[in-house]
C-alpha cells in the first residue's frame, strides 16, 4: 500500500475537502521540540524544572513538555504514532520498546553517539538494554531490577535472619511460615506471585533457560510453569501467602499490594518504586532479591526502567539530541532529576548524587550495588506479542489460583497459548 493511498483513505474522505480550506499550519518553529513522558506529580515537577533549566541555558530552543499518567500514556502514544505526529522525544518502557522498534517508530541513536551524545563512559550493561538488533534505539535514563520489598518490623519480630541477597526459595518458604505463625495469621508471609510473569521469568532463568529464545520462540517449558505454580500452590495450602481473592486482582495500584496494606510481609516490585512504596507503607521497608535456586543460574537481571527515545517523526534531530545529551550529562539537570526515574547509568552522575540521598533512596542504591554480582545478563529482546503472553499468563494462572484448573493441565495450555500468540503477532 502506498503512502498516498493510505492517507487518502485514512485521512477521511470528508476532511479532504475541508483540509483544502485550512492549510496545515507550520507547527514547529525552527528550534522547537516536543518531549512526551508518563509521570506523576513529583516527576512532572522535576521534568518541567529540567525543561526550564535547559531553555535558560539554550536561548532560542523551545521545549514543550507533554505528560499524562501511565495508564493513558500508551493510548495517546499509539494515536499520535498512527497520525505520524509523535513527539520528538518520548519516554519508553522496556516492555514496549520492542513493539515500537520492530514496527519502525523509533530512530537509532548510534550516529550521534560520541558526536553530540556523550555516553562513552556510561555503564555498558544498562546502556545495552536499549539496543535492538545491535542498534541503540533508546537511551537508558535510569536502571532498576526486581525486588522483594519486605516489612522490616515483621521480619524482626518473627526473627527471620537470613541473608536476603543470597537466600533460596526454601529460606523464603520458611520465612513465610515464621511470619505467618508469629502474627497469628494476621500477616501472611508474602504476596502470592503466581501471576507475576516477571518473577516467573527469573525462575525460568534459574532453571537455565530464557523465556524467549533467539528466534522469538517460547523456550520456557510446561515443566517450568507447573513448577512455579505448584510452588505457590503449596504455600497457599500451608496458608502462609496472601488470600487468593487478593491475588487474582491483576496489576493493582501499588497501594493495594500486601506490604503497603499491611496484610503480608513481602511484595514484588521494581527497585525504582521503593520511594513510592515507602510513602504508602506504615512500617519501614527493606529490599531483598528474588530467592535463588540452590545450584541454579542467576535469574534476576538489571534492566533499564525508563528510556528516552528519538522518534521517526522528529524533525530537528540535532536539537532533540542536544536536549537528550543534557538529560544524562548536565550536572544541574541530573541533580534535578535525582533518582526519581531509576539509577542513572553514568558513574559521574551517580557520584555527584551520592551525598544528597534520602534514606529510601540510599536503600535503593545500596540494594543496587549489592546485587551487581548476583544478576545474570540481560535477556534477548522480547518478540512482538510479549505483552499479550503476559496477559495469557495471568489469565490461565487465575484459574490455577482459584482452584478451577489443575496445575499441569494449565501449564501445558499456557505454553501452547503463548506460542500461538507469538506466532500470530509476527
Amino acid at each position: 500500500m502506498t503512502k498516498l493511498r493510505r492517507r487518502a483513505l485514512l485521512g477521511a474522505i470528508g476532511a479532504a475537502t475541508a483540509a483544502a480550506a485550512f492549510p496545515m499550519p507550520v507547527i514547529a518553529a525552527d528550534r522547537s521540540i516536543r518531549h512526551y513522558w508518563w509521570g506523576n506529580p513529583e516527576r512532572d515537577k522535576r521534568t518541567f524544572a529540567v525543561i526550564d533549566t535547559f531553555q535558560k541555558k539554550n536561548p532560542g530552543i523551545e521545549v514543550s513538555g507533554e505528560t499524562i499518567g501511565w495508564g493513558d500514556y500508551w493510548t495517546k502514544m499509539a494515536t499520535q504514532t498512527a497520525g505520524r505526529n509523535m513527539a520528538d522525544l518520548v519516554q519508553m518502557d522496556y516492555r514496549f520498546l520492542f513493539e515500537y522498534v520492530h514496527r519502525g517508530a523509533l530512530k537509532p541513536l548510534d550516529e550521534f553517539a560520541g558526536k553530540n551524545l556523550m555516553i562513552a563512559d556510561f555503564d555498558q550493561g544498562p546502556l545495552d538494554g536499549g539496543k535492538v538488533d545491535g542498534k541503540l534505539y533508546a537511551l537508558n535514563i535510569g536502571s532498576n531490577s526486581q525486588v522483594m520489598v519486605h516489612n522490616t518490623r515483621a521480619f524482626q519480630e518473627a526473627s527471620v535472619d537470613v541473608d536476603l541477597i543470597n537466600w533460596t526459595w526454601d529460606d523464603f518458604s520458611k520465612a513465610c511460615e515464621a511470619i505467618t505463625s508469629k502474627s497469628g495469621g494476621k500477616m501472611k508471609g508474602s504476596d502470592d506471585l503466581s501471576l507475576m510473569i516477571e518473577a516467573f521469568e527469573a525462575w525460568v532463568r534459574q532453571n537455565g533457560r530464557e523465556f524467549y529464545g533467539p528466534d522469538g520462540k517460547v523456550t520456557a517449558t510446561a515443566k517450568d510453569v507447573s513448577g512455579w505454580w505448584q510452588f505457590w500452590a503449596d504455600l497457599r495450602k500451608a496458608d502462609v501467602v496472601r488470600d487468593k481473592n487478593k491475588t487474582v486482582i491483576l496489576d493493582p495500584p501499588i497501594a493495594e499490594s500486601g506490604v503497603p496494606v499491611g496484610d503480608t510481609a513481602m511484595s514484588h516490585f521494581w527497585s525504582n518504586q521503593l520511594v513510592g512504596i515507602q510513602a504508602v507503607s506504615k512500617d519501614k521497608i527493606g529490599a531483598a532479591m528474588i530467592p535463588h535456586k540452590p545450584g541454579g543460574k542467576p535469574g534476576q537481571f538489571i534492566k533499564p526502567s525508563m528510556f528516552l527515545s528519538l522518534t521517526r517523526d522528529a524533525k530537528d534531530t540535532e536539537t532533540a539530541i542536544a536536549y537528550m545529551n543534557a538529560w544524562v550529562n548536565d550536572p544541574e539537570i541530573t541533580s534535578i532529576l535525582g533518582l526519581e526515574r531509576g539509577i542513572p547509568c553514568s558513574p559521574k552522575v551517580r557520584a555527584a548524587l551520592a551525598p544528597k540521598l534520602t534514606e529510601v533512596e540510599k536503600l535503593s542504591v545500596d540494594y543496587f550495588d549489592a546485587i551487581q554480582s548476583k544478576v545474570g545478563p540481560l535477556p534477548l529482546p522480547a518478540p512482538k506479542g510479549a505483552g499479550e503472553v503476559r496477559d495469557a499468563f495471568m489469565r490461565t494462572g487465575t484459574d490455577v489460583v482459584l482452584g478451577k484448573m489443575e496445575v499441569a493441565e494449565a501449564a501445558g495450555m499456557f505454553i501452547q497459548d503463548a506460542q500461538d500468540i507469538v506466532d500470530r503477532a509476527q
Partner: protein
Amino acid sequence: MEVSVEMEEAAKIAHEMRLRRDKRARNGRILKHIFLIGVSCVMLYPLFWLLASSFKPENEIFGSLTLWPSEFRFDNYTEGWNALPQSFTLFYVNSAIVTALSVIGNLISCSFAAYAFARLSFTGRRFLFALMMMTLMIPYHVVLIPQYVQFLRLGWVDTYLPLVVPRFLASDAFFIFLMVQFFRQLPRELDEAAMIDGCSPFKIYRAIILPLSLPAMGTAAIFSLIWVWEDFLAPLIYLNDIKSYTVPLALRLFLDQEGKSAYGQMFAMSVLSLVPVVIFFVLFQKLIVRGIATSGMK
C-alpha cells in the same frame, strides 16, 4: 326536611372519606420518606467514602474499611490544588470554557436536527435518521485514530476545536434522539394552527416547540454539561499542552501505576470537581420541575 338529613348524612360520609384518605395519604407519605431515606443512604455511601478518603493519610485509603479517618488531613486539598505543574485554577477555567461552549452547541444544533426529524416531513427522513442512529452504535475507540488524523490535517490538534466544533454540528446523536422523542409528544394541532396563521417553521420551533419542551431541554442541558465536564478521552487525545488541560485530564496526572501516586490528593480534587456539576444540577432541575406548569397548557 328529609332531604336535609340526607345531605347531612352525605356530608358526614364525605368528611369521613376525606379524613380517611388524608390519613392514608399521610401514612403513605411517611412510608415513602422512610423508603427514600433508606435508598439515599445506599446511594450516598460511596460519596461519603470518597469524601472520607480525601481526608485520610495515603496509607489508610486502601488498608482500612472504616469510613472515619484516624486524623483529618486538609492538606490533601490545599496541596492537591497546587500539586501539579499548573494550578487547578487554570484547569477549572479550561473546563469551564470547553463545557460552556459545548453545552450551548449541543442544545442549539441538536434541537434543530430533532425538530426537523420530529415535526417536519422531508425526503430521506428515515434514511438520515437511521444514519444518525448508527453513529450511536459504533464503538468510539475504532474511529479515534481516523478522527485524529482528520483533525491533525485540519491543524486542530492541541486546540479546543476538536472538542467544541463537533458539538455545534450536532455530533451527539443521543441528544437528537432524546429531543425527537419529546418533540413528537407535543400536539400536532399547535403547529397546524400556527402554520395557518402564517408562522414560519423557525417561528414554530422557537415559539411553540422550545417553550413546551423545557423538561426535555433541561434534561439535555444537564446531561450535556455532566458528560462534557467529565469527558476524558477526547481531551486526552487532542490536548498536548498541560496549560490547556481540563479537570478530568489533570486528575489523571496524579496516578502512576509504576511509581509514586497521590491518591489522597486525587480524591480531594475529585470531590472538588463534583462541586460545579452538583450546583448546576440543582439549578437546572428547576427547569424539569417547571414542566408541570407547561403541561397544564394543553
